[in-house]
């Protein structure tokens, strides 16, 4: 009698364990969401991939259509070769444009695909030729500063000289020598 109750409790315990593992896999993990069974592989060269990592999503129109498989450095062209696993359900034209975007201001980076107009579609092992690099924040800031500097090359100096002139005029005009008299 004692033993059967123990057996029951141990059975419940093990069942709970499996249920929790299943729950973790289904509800918490991406076993259900990233269930891309059949994929084809395409590569794309980028001059700068920023912070892109393997397993990052590949999105088109905001929908996840694949994952980044691997990133290697090509020592001949000095470019990053990114290989993408794309779901076989989705076909993309040969002149598809690949960008590296950032989700949010500080979010993770992903590859965005923009379909072109070609009638032949990408096959396994193909290469996407049109790419755009990741936006590097430092470059962006330096560009912004540079454009600001060229923009304000003459205008502000003019206005400042003008304002100082007008100020001295005002001073001259003001009856300073009459103060205190």
């Amino acid at each position, binding site marked *: 009698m004692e033993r059967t109750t123990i057996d029951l409790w141990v059975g419940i*315990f093990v069942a709970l364990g499996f249920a929790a*593992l299943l729950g973790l896999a289904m509800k918490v993990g991406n076993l259900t969401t990233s269930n891309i069974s059949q994929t084809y592989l395409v590569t794309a060269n980028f001059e700068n991939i920023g912070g892109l990592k393997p397993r990052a999503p590949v999105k088109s129109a905001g929908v996840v259509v694949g994952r980044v498989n691997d990133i290697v450095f090509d020592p001949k062209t000095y470019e990053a070769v990114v290989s993408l696993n794309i779901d076989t359900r989705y076909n993309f034209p040969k002149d598809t444009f690949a960008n590296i975007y950032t989700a949010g201001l500080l979010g993770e980076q992903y590859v965005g695909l923009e379909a072109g107009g070609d009638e032949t579609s990408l096959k396994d092992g193909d290469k996407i030729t049109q790419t755009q690099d990741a936006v590097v924040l430092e470059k962006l800031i330096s560009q912004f500063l540079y454009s600001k500097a060229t923009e304000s090359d003459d205008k502000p100096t003019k206005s400042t000289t003008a304002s100082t002139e007008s100020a001295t005029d005002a001073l001259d005009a003001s009856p300073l020598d009459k103060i205190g008299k």
Partner: protein
Amino acid sequence: MVVHKLTRMLSKLGAGCINKVWRLGAGGRLFWLTLISSGESFRRFRLTIREVYFTGVLSLIIILVSAFFVGMVLALQGYQTLQKYGSSEAIGVLVALALVRELGPVVTALLFAGRAGTAITAEIGLMKATEQLSAMEMMAVSPIARVIAPRFWAGVIAMPILATLFSMVGILGGYLVAVPLIGVDAGAFWSQMQANVDWQYDILNGALKSVVFGVACTMIALFEGYDAPPTAEGVSRATTRTVVTSSLAVLGLDFILTSFMLAV
């Protein structure tokens, strides 16, 4: 005089080191003996089931309650910081990853060492002190196959189950704090979690960690009990050593396992 004192100190240090190495070797030998004589514990599986009840089922309360509180605290603390960067929806990812990767296996192993490991050490130490183990040997029953191996396998079975339950209940606790209490959007909570927790890299690796911790904690508890001097003081010291050694082993192993898992 000073030289005499110095030599005595050095010899004490050396004896301590040699003693540690000796114990490590003896522990390794016991581990090997347990592995080769564990056929018995699978043939008479009832013995193992009984031990799973004592080490696993009876540990459920402490594991689940602490998991619940750990999850709630994680959500509260994480929210404070994430809110500053305007990404309070990422709280689900934070809670889930922290629990599944680290806190689930590690805290479970620490609690397991305190709750079940000490019980195993005290039980076996007392069995040895009252010469039950010698009596078994006299009856040609191997105490390793009859006593040690079932407890070992019970610990190895129970630990991953407990750790998985810890993670699950912890996430539930985090959910309760984040969504109804703080007011984070429930959809964002779960979807961000699902997008960032990987089944293989995070959940399976966490389970693998807990299996390793199960082997380490149970083996340390068994060895300390088997090796305890057959006195009241000896058993009490062995019980203390079980907790200290298991905790240090779990934390050290955690670093090694994590560095391997992140490197891949």
